[in-house]
């Protein structure tokens, strides 16, 4: 059963919840967690393939949000996009045993997401759209995109991994990015 308070939290915008976090309202953080933890958990597990490490990063991201929410400028970018970028960066750093990113990520990484992901319905719709768009890519292009996104490999690293010429890899990735941009954002 969804209470009136819960309904209000579901309707609250990311910006208003961030404002409440700045005012040290922990229920606002809990609401944001409920909104985005599943989305972040999915990508963290996909990259790390380690549930414990994924949950450590997940907790750390929201704790950083709690501590540095005042640095986040909602007018410059979306919270959902920032969360996705930070989650990916942290997971790849863990994967490569790099040092974790600093707390300045919040003000430095401006991310603009065209879609409003504040509702679970919107997230599910976007998921279907992304999966569909990737399925429509040629197999090699999709593989190149996934190696870049989920494993953090550069052009040269993908070429080395697949044994394909560097130029071919660059072409595949560029074509894939162009196709996805058209399919997802047109």
């Amino acid at each position, binding site marked *: 059963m969804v209470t009136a308070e819960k309904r209000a939290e579901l309707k609250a915008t990311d910006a208003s919840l961030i404002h409440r976090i700045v005012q040290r309202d922990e229920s606002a953080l809990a609401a944001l967690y409920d909104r985005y933890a599943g989305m972040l958990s999915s990508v963290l597990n996909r990259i790390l393939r380690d*549930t414990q490490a994924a949950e450590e990063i997940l907790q750390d991201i929201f704790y950083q949000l709690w501590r540095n929410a005042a640095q986040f400028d909602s007018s410059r970018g979306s919270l959902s996009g920032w969360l996705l970028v930070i989650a990916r960066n942290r997971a790849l750093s863990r994967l490569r045993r790099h040092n974790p990113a600093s707390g300045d990520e919040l003000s430095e990484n401006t991310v603009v997401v065209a879609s409003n992901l504040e509702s679970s319905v919107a997230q599910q719709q976007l998921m279907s759209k992304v999966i569909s768009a990737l399925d429509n890519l040629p197999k090699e292009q999709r593989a190149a995109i996934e190696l870049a996104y989920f494993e953090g490999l550069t052009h040269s690293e993908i070429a080395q991994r697949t044994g394909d010429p560097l130029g071919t890899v660059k072409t595949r990735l*560029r074509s894939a*990015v162009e196709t996805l941009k058209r399919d997802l954002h047109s």
Partner: protein
Amino acid sequence: MSIEHPTRMEDFDLYALGALDDAERRAFESHVASCAECAEKVAEARGRVAILAFASPPVAPSPGVKETLMRQVIASAEGPGGSFAHAKPEPAVDGGIFARWWAGLLPVATAFALATVLLWLHNEQLNRQLADLRNTITQQKQELAETRHQADLIAERETMVVPLWSQKGTPESHAEGHARVLYNAKEGMMTYDGWLPSAPADKSYQLWLVPMNGAPISAGVFNPRNGEMSHMMMKLPAGVTAKEFAVSLEPVGGMPHPTGPMVLVGPIS
């Protein structure tokens, strides 16, 4: 690409994807750092690339993550660096490890103290019962000794048995009182067994040995309860020859000499 705008829009997406090799990435970042227009395009490209995360299979985090997070948040608010305007008051129950230790020990200590008191009370009760039993044993030993003494007294040839009767001397007067005295003049030992109605509140019965010569000798004062027999054993001067035994009604506590009416009389025949 170091100082020029990226010529193709896909370059922003490839940068956001992290696909650029080191040299390309450094040149790209060098330009974007000083170009607001390209920085905005990078932000948009980050958004476009970020949503590729939705290609991941859904994995819900365990509930413990949120619980741990919220505990961490609350702990940070209550810590030295915390400054919550609406911080909830900390329950005043945590006084440190010794307080927690004592809080855990207190019920045990209370239980031990209660058990000690109960054991002490039980021990006191047992001591009282033991003392009562010892008194009873002592009393029974005395009664046994008296009985044996009476038996020995009766068995001796010098012991005389003297019945005491009401002064009226009729069978009906038996209901007014009767008694029996065993007397051994040689030993100076005497026992009394008899029944008399309760004496008036201000009176006592007094047993007398009336010698052949001289004044009556008090052999004891008694106040029988209504309906009960009276038993007494007395040590009298040895060698006194008795003429009779008598019970008189005297003031409470008895008198040196008989002053009241004789209730029972037992002449030695």
